[in-house]
C-alpha cells in the first residue's frame, strides 16, 4: 500500500535534491511519486509517496541531502486545519496510544520558536491522548512539528518577531534520520592523505557519486582523474574506478606510492581503484567500447588548471622536426626523458568530445556525470542540449550557483544499445545537433572568468 512520507532536506544544493532521489530510486529499483505536481525544490520539505517504509530507509542511508524522513500525518496553513487533518489520519497513529514512549519536537525553518510557544504547541496535540511515557532521550517514537517561514534574510527584526506567522506547518512521525551526510566529514578534503588545489569538495563529490549509481560490481571511469576526488566516494559505494590523466604527476604526487593510492588506502578502498593510467583522453588506448557503467569526471576548466591535449600550438618547422627525430632516435647521455608537448583543450570542444567518448565507452543505460562551468547571465538550456549526440539524453542538470558564474552538474544517459566507433576528437561538427550557431556560455570559460564576465571590449 502506498503511503506518504515527509522528507526533510539539508539546506544545501537544492537543485540537486530531486535528481539525487530519482537516481537512488533507479539504483534500488523502486518508484516514488512526488505528491505535488511540481515540487518546489527550494523548499526543505517535500511530501513523497512510496510503496514501503523500507524504501525510505534505503534512501536515507544513501542520500547525501536527506536529513530525515517522517511518516506524514498532515500539513496545513493553520494549526486548526492541521489538527483536523491529523484527526482524520487517526489510523496512522492509533497504535501508539496505549503504551509507546514518545517525545514531541517543535521546530521551525527560517525562524526560532520561543520555548514557551513550543510547549503550547505540544499541548494542542493533547487530543491524541498518548498514554505511554514521555521520554526525551530514547523514545520509541518521535513526533515532529515543523513550521515553515518565508526567508527573511537581511531584514533586521526583533527576536521572535513574526512568531506564528508561518506559511505551512507539517506534522509527522520520525522514520529514519539520514545517515549518509556523515560521509561529508569522512571524505573531508582537508583530512585526506593526498589532495591538490583542484580536488573536489566532499559533499559535491558524494552527490556526483550518487548520480552515477555506483554500487558493488559496477565499473566506472574518470578521464580527468587529477588527484582522484571522484574515485573515493564512488569506491566507497562499492564501484571499481579507472582513472586516467594526461599529467601523471597529479595522480602520483610525491614518493613511491602514488598519492591516489595513499588516499584510497586511508578510506579502505585501495582495491576499488581499478588502475591508473597516464594518457591523453583524445589519444586513448582503450581497446574497445561498451565497458563502463558510468563515466564521472570534473574536467579542468582553466581557472585553477586548464585542460590539455597532446599537440603543439604551432607545428614544428622542417628543421625543428628533423632535430626532434634525431634527438628521439639517437639520444645522448644527457638527454632528458621525453615529455610530449601539450596544447590547450577548449572547454566547449571538450564537452562535445566527452559526450561522444561516453557514447563509445559506456554500456547501454550507462551514465556520464560531469561538471560544466558556465556564465550565469549567458547560460541557456540549449547549451547543454547542443552538445548531445544521438543516443545520449540529459537526465539531470543542476546548478551550483556562485553568483556571476556557476557550475552545472550534468547527468547524461546512453539510451541506445547500439555500439559506436571511437570518436575522432577532431571534427567540430561530429557532435551536437548543429542546428544553430550559438556559442554556449561555457565556451572560452577561462577567458571570460579572468575578464570578470564583462563583455570583451
Amino acid at each position, binding site marked *: 500500500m502506498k503511503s506518504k512520507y515527509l522528507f526533510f532536506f539539508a539546506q544545501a544544493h537544492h537543485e540537486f535534491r530531486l535528481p539525487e532521489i530519482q537516481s537512488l530510486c533507479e539504483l534500488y529499483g523502486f518508484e516514488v511519486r512526488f505528491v505535488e505536481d511540481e515540487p518546489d525544490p527550494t523548499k526543505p520539505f517535500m511530501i513523497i509517496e512510496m510503496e514501503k517504509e523500507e524504501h525510505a530507509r534505503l534512501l536515507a542511508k544513501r542520500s547525501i541531502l536527506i536529513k530525515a524522513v517522517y511518516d506524514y500525518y498532515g500539513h496545513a496553513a493553520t494549526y486548526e486545519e492541521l489538527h483536523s487533518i491529523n484527526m482524520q489520519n487517526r489510523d496512522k497513529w492509533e497504535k501508539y496510544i496505549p503504551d509507546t514512549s514518545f517525545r514531541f519536537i517543535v521546530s521551525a525553518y527560517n525562524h526560532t520558536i520561543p520555548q514557551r510557544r513550543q510547549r503550547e504547541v505540544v499541548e494542542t496535540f493533547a487530543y491524541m491522548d498518548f498514554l505511554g511515557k514521555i521520554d526525551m532521550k530514547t523514545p520509541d517514537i518521535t513526533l515532529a512539528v515543523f513550521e515553515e517561514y518565508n526567508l527573511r534574510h537581511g531584514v533586521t527584526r526583533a527576536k521572535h518577531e513574526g512568531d506564528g506567522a508561518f506559511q505551512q506547518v507539517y506534522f509527522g512521525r520520525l522514520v529514519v534520520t539520514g545517515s549518509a551526510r556523515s560521509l561529508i566529514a569522512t571524505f573531508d578534503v582537508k583530512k585526506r592523505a593526498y589532495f591538490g588545489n583542484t580536488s573536489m569538495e566532499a559533499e559535491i563529490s558524494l552527490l556526483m557519486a550518487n548520480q552515477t549509481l555506483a554500487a558493488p560490481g559496477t565499473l566506472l571511469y574518470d578521464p580527468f582523474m587529477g588527484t582522484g576526488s571522484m574515485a573515493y566516494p564512488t569506491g566507497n559505494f562499492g564501484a571499481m574506478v579507472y582513472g586516467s590523466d594526461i599529467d601523471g604527476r597529479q595522480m602520483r604526487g610525491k614518493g613511491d606510492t602514488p598519492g591516489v593510492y595513499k588516499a584510497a588506502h586511508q578510506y579502505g578502498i585501495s582495491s576499488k581503484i581499478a588502475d591508473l593510467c597516464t594518457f591523453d583522453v583524445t589519444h586513448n588506448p582503450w*581497446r574497445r567500447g561498451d565497458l563502463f557503467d558510468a563515466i564521472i569526471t570534473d574536467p579542468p576548466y582553466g581557472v585553477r588548471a586548464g585542460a590539455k591535449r597532446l599537440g603543439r600550438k604551432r607545428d614544428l618547422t622542417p628543421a625543428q622536426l628533423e632535430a*626532434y627525430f634525431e634527438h628521439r632516435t639517437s639520444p645522448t647521455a644527457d638527454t632528458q626523458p621525453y615529455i610530449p608537448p601539450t596544447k590547450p583543450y577548449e572547454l566547449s570542444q571538450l564537452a562535445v568530445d566527452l559526450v561522444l567518448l561516453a557514447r563509445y565507452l559506456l554500456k547501454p543505460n550507462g551514465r556520464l556525470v560531469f561538471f560544466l562551468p558556465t556564465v550565469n547571465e549567458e547560460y541557456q538550456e540549449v547549451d547543454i542540449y547542443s552538445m548531445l549526440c544521438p543516443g545520449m539524453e540529459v537526465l539531470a542538470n543542476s546548478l551550483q550557483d556562485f553568483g556571476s558564474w556557476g557550475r552545472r552538474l550534468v547527468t547524461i544517459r546512453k539510451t541506445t544499445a547500439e555500439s559506436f566507433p571511437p570518436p575522432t576528437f577532431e571534427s567540430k561538427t561530429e557532435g551536437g545537433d548543429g542546428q544553430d550557431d550559438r556559442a554556449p556560455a561555457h565556451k572560452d570559460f577561462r577567458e571570460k572568468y579572468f575578464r570578470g564576465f564583462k563583455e570583451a571590449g
Partner: protein
Amino acid sequence: MVRLMTHNLLACHAKGCTTNNFPLALKDVQIELRESDFNPDFLKGFLPKLDWPALVLAARQLGDETLPLQQPEMLDDEFLKNLHHVLLEIHIEEGSMTCPNCAHVYPISNGIPNMLLAEHEIG
C-alpha cells in the same frame, strides 16, 4: 598497479598502428599479489568484454596456469575464483608493455603505465 584486467583493455594507439597492436607484450615485469573483493556477478558481466586468449597468455607468462586455454561454457565457482585472481589480484608494479606491431614501449612505473604518445605518433 597494472592488473591483467587493465592489460586486457589496453591496445597500442600510435598513429597508423591499427592491426596486430594487441595484446601488448609484457617485459621485465615485477608483480605483487593483492587481495580484492570477490564479486562473481561482476566477473560474469565482464567476461564478454575480455579477449580470452590474450588473458590466458598474459597469465601464463606471469606463472599462473589456472585458466583453461578455451573459455569454458560452465562458469563454476572454482573457475570464477581463478578468473578473479588473474584479473584483479595480480598487479604489475614495474616493467613495460611493448606493441607487437610498431614496437612502441609503454613503461610502467610505481604501477602506473605511461600510455602517452610522442608528437610524431599522434594523428
